[in-house]
């Protein structure tokens, strides 16, 4: 009898765990496809790597930052895929990291949920030079994902409703 209860419980937990794991496996498989889509959008630029930023929506705002290097006047493309976003986020690109109060906002956009959006470094460089006198070129950029708070989100025990990722693929002109 006792073993029956224990088995019942373990079985129930295993089902819950397996269901969540299966959902997350599907989530990861989707990300792999989104990475391919983002990579295709880079062409004819050369793929240089990707950075997938995973997060869970919470009831409060969050910021995730990714630093990217720009070398030797090379032209770069950044392909953002937001097809694993259950809610929209705002993408902001700066010349300095978020601890710097004098940083310059180079570009900001939202509406990435369900979309693939490409940004070129030449556009960022132009804005940089317009906003900062004597500036010649960007040597790095800082991508900030501004993640809004979602009322009712499960902060401590997230579910698939809160699970999110932005796929960022980088490429350079050969």
């Amino acid at each position, binding site marked *: 009898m*006792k073993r*029956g209860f224990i088995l019942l419980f373990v079985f129930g937990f295993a089902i819950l*765990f397996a269901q969540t794991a299966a959902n997350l496996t599907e989530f990861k498989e989707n990300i792999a496809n989104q990475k391919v889509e983002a990579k295709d959008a880079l062409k004819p630029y050369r*793929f240089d*790597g990707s950075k997938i930023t*995973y997060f869970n929506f919470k009831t409060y705002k969050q910021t*995730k930052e990714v630093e990217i*290097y720009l070398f*030797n006047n090379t032209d770069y493309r950044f392909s953002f895929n937001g097809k694993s976003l259950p809610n929209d986020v705002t993408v902001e690109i700066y010349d300095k990291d978020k601890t710097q109060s004098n940083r310059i906002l180079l570009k900001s956009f939202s509406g990435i949920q369900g979309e693939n959006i490409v940004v070129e470094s030449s556009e960022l460089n132009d804005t940089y030079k317009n906003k900062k006198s004597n500036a010649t*070129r960007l040597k790095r950029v800082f991508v900030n994902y501004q993640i809004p708070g979602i009322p009712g989100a499960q902060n401590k025990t997230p579910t698939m409703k809160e699970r999110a990722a932005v796929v960022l693929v980088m490429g350079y002109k050969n």
Partner: protein
Amino acid sequence: MKRRFLLVNSMIGLAFLAGSCGGEEPVDEVNEIVQDTVFAEDQFAALFEESPEVDYHLPSPLQVASIFKKSGLDYNAGSTNLTDNADNYTDKLKQKLNFGVYSADMAYCVMNDQSNEGRKFLTVITDLSEEIGMEAVFENKDLMDRFDANLEDKDSIEILMIDIHERTEMYLEDNDMQNEAAIHFAGAWTEGMYLGVYDFEKNPGKEGVGAQITEQMSILNNIIKGLKDPKNDGTDLGWLILDMEEIQAAFDEFDSVIAFEADENASELELTDEEYSSLGELVKALREKIIAV
């Protein structure tokens, strides 16, 4: 936490109920179930793991080689690590570091139209990948076949190198091994810098190469940060981190760097000959340690 609390309490309740129905050793079984549940909860939480608040992207060895090439770097035969050394790297750290070193060497050869040399490095990288548990990246020999079929076509070889980089990236991510990328990259960065320093010393006056050596220094802090990832604990990385921190500290104390950082309007950093020489010596010393058998 709330879910864990509910689960643990429910199980304790169930176990006591079960115990009252004539079972044996209820306390041990409760403890066992609680432990199992805590373990399962940890696994559950890991499924929803989030990226760090601050992250970075490091350039591929091919991009670094491409940038150096565009900056005027020439091919110098004999400057790369000897492929014969590979068999003598028996500890995992050396194997991972030199996986990065040989990746940079391969990119250097390919960018400089030395495909036959590049092929030797692909063989070594393939062998090392087996030693460090990444053989799946190179399985089926299709990469080598493609390399052989395109020896004379630089563009195709470059695309093949991109494929290798992408497969490696995907493999590390799928197997939760991204922390190891910093170790590979530490080897690749050191070799890339060494090849730049080697050319710069042989052909002084190449301003483009000098500027690129300086520019590549901007990555170092993030490599060190990556090496310090707690998931790398247990790997004997102390000496490597110390050497890299020494290079970073020396660079930060150069007068040219201090002046550059202080001038909000400064656009390009240029080191003095002495500073280049000092940086070069530190890079060479680190590279020597990394490739030593």
